[in-house]
């Protein structure tokens, strides 16, 4: 009996340890936590923001989208205009000195939130740190070394010719922090940046990030006194929370709800296209799909307008080429394929696919035209879109069975060649430059060219463009590439991705930035009293 009591005590104490310990970490790690966010004086402008992902990490080297774009705590060297052309950020000018060397001149009047001035040393430190932490930036930028020329000048050497380096410097994970963001042991503590808002607290338990106005922002005056960012990964929750009045600003409520919420008094919804495109890869090893007529027929069979209206609820728009028409380098001559069932029928018949047995499915040499359409559920528009495409293709006699798999499983299938069609939503301006996408998607050795598309002309054009520093000439080459792949349809583009910004009417002066990776909070936004 005694032993039993002892063992009970033992177990209890074991149980108690994590609870107590968590209590400790809780209090120590959220040192600056504001205990009473509700007890703010009403004259203070506080905006509560429903962020679309869980906020877990506040290190801009890996969570730049949150810290740099959404919380506006840090800034990058390079900014971008709505047409995706680059403009000065923390750097005023930059220049590609030779194939392997870039030079950046920094803004002189920028101070960090802790009061220290930003220098080239800080930039070098931040970029090198990001390079270590973030394999993506490392490979995109291909930086070999960074040299501080003087307090406000940097020289960056790349390992190979990298025409997009300036664009990479727009990527939020490259944003600049002060060395004081780290403790003596080199562990990241909190982001000390240069942005319009400065970090106040992050409660790891509730995952609420609070930032406050930076009175000394180099860019001018800042609209809000305080911004509270709450991670709400579920679109329904965000919709209900803003209706409920818990939020002032959020994004991407369920698309189907956008019109209803817009109609609610005091809330408005704005829909924008964002640099991401729904595209359907075709397996060019497949006998039917290797025929350009079949691919074009598929493209003609799809009703992009219907999809945009009924599946995306107009959050997005029909796609022609891989780039948004608003992008400065986009080939504006291309128009989305219009649904044309006669043309589709004609093309398919020319290619030898006819319905000989009357079952509604075309066949050739006794093989029915049956395709598997793979997609994944992480982006909510994809499963219904795949079902819709399947139904539309059925009308021209192509049997498509849509399957929703984990992305990992899709990758595996693609690698083994065991696939027909894959519907996915790809980013088209990871960095504001066309090279990245066109090279990855359409050149013979492009890492994202799993369909196996190979066109010598395309390869040559892209390679040529790499060494042209004159932007207009460069973009001309890319426009030619766009035109070729528009005709050949190795990837069938469906629609541009959209973003729905939902905010209270009292939130004024919000400016949507299409170059942001989800959305960006601009300094001028304020709440009308």
């Amino acid at each position, binding site marked *: 009996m005694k032993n039993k009591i002892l063992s009970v005590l033992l177990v209890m104490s074991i149980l108690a340890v994590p609870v107590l310990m968590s209590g400790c970490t809780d209090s120590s790690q959220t040192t600056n936590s504001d205990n009473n966010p509700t007890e703010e004086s009403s004259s203070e402008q506080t905006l509560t923001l429903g962020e679309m992902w869980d906020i877990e990490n506040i290190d801009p080297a890996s969570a730049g989208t949150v810290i740099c774009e959404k919380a506006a705590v840090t800034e990058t060297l390079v900014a971008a205009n709505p047409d995706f052309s680059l403009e000065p950020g923390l750097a005023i000018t930059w220049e590609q000195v030779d194939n392997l060397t870039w030079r950046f001149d920094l803004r002189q009047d920028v101070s960090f939130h802790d009061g220290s001035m930003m220098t080239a040393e800080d930039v070098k430190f931040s970029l090198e740190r990001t390079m270590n932490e973030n394999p993506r930036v490392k490979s995109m930028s291909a930086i070999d070394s960074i040299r501080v020329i003087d307090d406000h000048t940097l020289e960056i050497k790349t390992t190979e010719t990298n025409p997009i380096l300036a664009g990479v410097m727009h990527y939020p994970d490259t944003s600049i922090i002060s060395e004081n963001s780290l403790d003596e042991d080199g562990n990241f503590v909190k982001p000390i940046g240069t942005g319009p808002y400065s970090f106040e607290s992050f409660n790891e338990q509730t995952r609420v990030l609070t930032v406050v106005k930076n009175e000394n922002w180099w860019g001018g005056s800042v609209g809000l006194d305080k911004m509270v960012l709450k991670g709400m990964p579920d*679109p*329904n929750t965000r*919709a209900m929370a803003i209706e409920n009045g818990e939020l002032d600003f959020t994004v991407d409520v*369920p698309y*189907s*709800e956008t019109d*209803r919420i817009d109609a609610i008094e005091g809330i408005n919804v704005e829909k924008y296209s964002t640099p991401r495109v729904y595209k359907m890869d075709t397996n060019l090893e497949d006998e039917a799909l290797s025929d350009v007529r079949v691919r074009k027929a598929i493209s003609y069979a799809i009703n992009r307008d*219907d999809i945009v*209206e*009924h*599946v995306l609820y107009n959050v997005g728009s029909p796609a022609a080429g891989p780039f948004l028409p608003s992008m400065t380098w986009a080939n504006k001559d291309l128009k989305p394929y219009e649904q044309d069932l006669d043309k589709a029928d004609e093309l398919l018949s020319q290619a030898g696919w006819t319905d000989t047995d009357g079952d509604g499915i075309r066949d050739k040499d006794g093989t029915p035209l049956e395709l598997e359409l793979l997609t994944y*559920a992480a982006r*909510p528009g994809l*499963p*219904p879109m*795949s*079902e*819709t495409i*399947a*139904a539309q293709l059925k009308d021209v006699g192509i049997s498509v*069975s*849509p*399957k*929703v*798999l*984990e992305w*990992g*499983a899709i990758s595996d299938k693609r690698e083994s060649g065991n696939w027909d069609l894959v519907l996915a939503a790809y980013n088209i301006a990871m960095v504001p430059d066309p090279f990245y996408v066109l090279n990855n998607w359409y050149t013979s050795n492009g890492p994202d060219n799993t369909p196996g598309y190979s066109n010598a002309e395309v390869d040559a054009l892209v390679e040529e463009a790499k060494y042209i520093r004159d932007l207009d000439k460069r973009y001309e080459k890319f426009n030619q590439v766009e035109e070729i792949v528009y005709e050949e349809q190795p990837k069938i583009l469906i629609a541009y991705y959209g973003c729905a910004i939902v905010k209270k009417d009292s939130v004024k002066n919000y400016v949507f930035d299409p170059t942001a990776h989800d959305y960006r909070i601009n300094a001028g936004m304020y709440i009308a009293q």
Partner: protein
Amino acid sequence: MTGKIFRRKDMTISILLLALLVVVAISYPLLALSDPNAIDLTNKNLAPSAEHPLGTDYLGRDILNRLAAGTTTSLSIAAGVSAISLFVGVLIGCISGYYGGIIDETLSRIIDIFLSFPGIVFALAIMGFLGGGVINLILALSVVHWAKYARLMRGQVLSIKENEYVLSAKIIGAGDFHIMRKHLIPNSVATVIILATIDIGHVLLSIAALNFLGIGLPADIPEWGAMLSAGKEFMRTSPYQTIFPGMAITMVVIIFSIIGEGLRDIFDPNDTGGEYL
């Protein structure tokens, strides 16, 4: 026995409803009245009407039609899971209970390990890494469910293996296989089957839960849980596509609970009607 079953009103209704569901499940794919996947985008998210008695879903598909088609999928997955886990559970439980000793020790330990995973977490882990799909779903849920039956079966076998008719069979010269097949399994399986009946409902709930988390079945397969999960996004603009599948699941779970518990009452040896003498 049958008299006893139909004397209970709730049992009768439940059995009739289940029979109806099974008929729908079997006949639906054979009849192929209309394609449950046929979309009609202009008529999406409609409220119930004469044309669409339960409304339409987010792609304009008829909800009633899809619910009916879903009967086949939902019931066959649930039946598949129950059949597999029942078979494995009964077999392992029986062997473990009958032989005892080191065999029992080993098997019991394995059963314990499987039981110590909360079911949905385990299924989630398996599904998360196997990927979605009917077969994977059946496998994952079977892996989760069998141990429960095995433990129950083992207990039952332990409680009857010292019964005199089992001893008598041994003395008569019956082999182990004969004893298990003729004596142990028939006399303990009823309890396990009752549990399985009630459990079919839980399987349906698990399917729905996995679908809710986005790793069950693809949305184009008309399955109730998948429908519910796909419809949750339209919860407020068009609640029917969530409410009706949810109600269908709830009703079937209730039906199986009533039948299972009714069976338990009927099989209960205490209920002989003559106990007062």
